[in-house]
């Protein structure tokens, strides 16, 4: 019986390549429907890996906030992901990928165009055989927009009210991110200009970072963070969770960058996906090691939270061009990202910008660096890369500043002093993450 069980899949594996064999022999490439199947599979696997980054962000942020705010941080994380998923269906996906449906060519896609999937059991004649199924493409793109929103939640943690934050997420994921994303990935004006951002150092990470920076500025620092001209650290509640979150994000990044190859139907494409995996891993490792060494040298003790940020900064740095660099290239690009974080975290403190989890150094600064670093191995000019960085920066930062200001003057974005000191868990939720521990 056991033998039969293992024989049946084995037979299927042997039979599978036969299906496209006739055409393969003629062209050296798999049949188009085989390519469609493998690319769709790439999107689905990449998509659920990137989906799991939502868990990574949640654990990272849960570990770096104080225990009185953990339940609220978890609430924000699951709510923002879910809102992003709905908004991306309702408006975002078609706004970002207009095809022929631009409202203003190259700049603005169609509003009020919801996503429609392929029909059930779609036939080869009706499917996009040169690409992938709509469902896989839609799912893969929507988990990216959720990552952008997660970046914001970390920076504004421990003091922002739940509902104004979620209102911001609605606009960010439904409108702002899709509009700016369409400029490049939707085939808009920046892609025409030759801008290069493979998996989104700028389009995903810097956009999240700019929105986070605007939020942290309008919101102001946590009570007691900057007092008498000094910085008063507020150590996180659980560094084991923060470390788990970082490893989950690292895992998810293989889907993030690898899936962004957007094709897995040929020898070249699947080999490229493997190059991207190897480079992505290298950049994370070198970012972490760089931060480990830098904090040891600067502060005489390694700082785990900085090492975690360093790994993530390495990942963000390689995201704009994870394919072209050699492994050595990925190593030094990631290491520079790790070093940027070590210097950027205290620098933000000097400006009294309170970023609870280091989202701005990791996603904005390393994102800018990664986008510039494309010029060393990829095909892009410094001028077009800077054009893209500035375009995304101005649009997102100004848009987010306006949006945060409107929210502040209408709903109010910050909890009361008493609520902030007592913790958002009890004040806003009436429940605690750790109810069986005494106050300490």
């Amino acid at each position, binding site marked *: 019986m056991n033998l039969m069980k293992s024989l049946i899949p084995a037979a299927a594996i042997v039979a599978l390549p036969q299906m496209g064999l006739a055409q393969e022999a003629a062209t050296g490439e798999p049949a188009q429907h085989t390519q469609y199947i493998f690319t769709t599979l790439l999107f689905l696997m990449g998509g659920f890996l990137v989906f799991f980054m939502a868990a990574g962000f949640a654990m990272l942020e849960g570990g770096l906030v104080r225990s009185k705010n953990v339940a609220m941080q978890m609430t924000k994380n699951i709510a923002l992901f879910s809102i992003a998923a709905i908004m991306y269906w309702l408006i975002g996906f078609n706004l970002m990928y207009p095809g022929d449906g631009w409202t203003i060519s190259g700049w603005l896609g169609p509003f009020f165009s919801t996503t429609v999937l392929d029909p059930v059991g779609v036939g080869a004649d009706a499917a996009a055989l040169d690409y992938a199924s709509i469902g896989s493409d839609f799912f893969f793109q929507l988990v990216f927009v959720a990552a952008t929103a997660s970046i914001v939640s970390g920076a504004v943690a421990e003091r922002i009210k739940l509902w104004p934050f979620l209102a911001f997420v609605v606009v960010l994921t439904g409108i702002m991110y899709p509009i700016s994303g369409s400029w490049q990935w939707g085939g808009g004006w920046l892609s025409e200009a030759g801008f290069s951002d493979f998996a989104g150092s700028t389009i995903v990470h810097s956009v999240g970072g700019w929105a986070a920076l605007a939020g942290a500025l309008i919101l102001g620092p946590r009570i007691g963070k900057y007092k008498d001209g000094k*910085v*008063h*650290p507020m*150590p996180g509640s659980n560094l084991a969770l923060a470390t788990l979150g970082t490893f989950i994000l690292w895992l998810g990044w293989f889907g993030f960058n690898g899936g962004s190859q957007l094709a897995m139907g040929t020898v070249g494409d699947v080999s490229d996906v493997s190059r991207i995996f190897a480079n992505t891993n290298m950049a994370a490792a070198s970012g972490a090691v760089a931060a480990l060494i830098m904090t040891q040298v*600067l*502060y*005489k*003790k390694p*700082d785990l*939270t*900085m090492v975690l940020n360093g790994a993530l900064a390495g990942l963000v740095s390689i995201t704009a061009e994870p394919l072209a660099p050699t492994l050595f290239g990925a190593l030094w690009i990631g290491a520079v990202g790790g070093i940027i974080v*070590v210097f950027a*975290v*205290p620098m933000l*403190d000097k400006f009294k910008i309170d970023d609870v989890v*280091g989202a701005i150094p990791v996603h904005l600064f390393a994102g800018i660096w990664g986008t510039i670093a494309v010029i060393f191995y990829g095909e892009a000019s410094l001028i077009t890369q800077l054009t893209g960085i500035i375009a995304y920066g101005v649009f997102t930062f100004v848009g987010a500043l306006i949006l945060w200001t409107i929210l502040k003057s209408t709903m109010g974005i910050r909890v009361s002093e008493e609520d902030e000191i007592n913790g958002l868990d009890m004040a806003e939720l009436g429940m605690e993450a750790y109810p069986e521990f005494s106050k300490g």
Partner: protein
Amino acid sequence: MKLIIATIKPFKLEEVREALTNAGVRGMMVTEIKGFGSQSGHTEIYRGAEYAVNFVPKIKLEIVVPATMADQIVETITTTAKTGKIGDGKIFVLDVEQAMRVRTGETNEEAL
């Protein structure tokens, strides 16, 4: 009878307990505490920002012994808890007026 209150470094607790047991101490009370002395805490760095740790973790021992043993016990704690570095702790000796063993009703040195 004397009450000996000693603050020591937490990592020294096992060594001190063993030495005191060997010296004839038959009971002690142990509390995890935080505090500061002439050292006045120290500084640590979190994400690039220096901050003061004003209260340092210590262990507080409370031991009641016959008055005749007190000097020897103080001596034992001093030699075992000492590292020679700042923050080794302090020892205080107080008079005890009365002792009672709850189970048997024995009093004073009988109760120790």
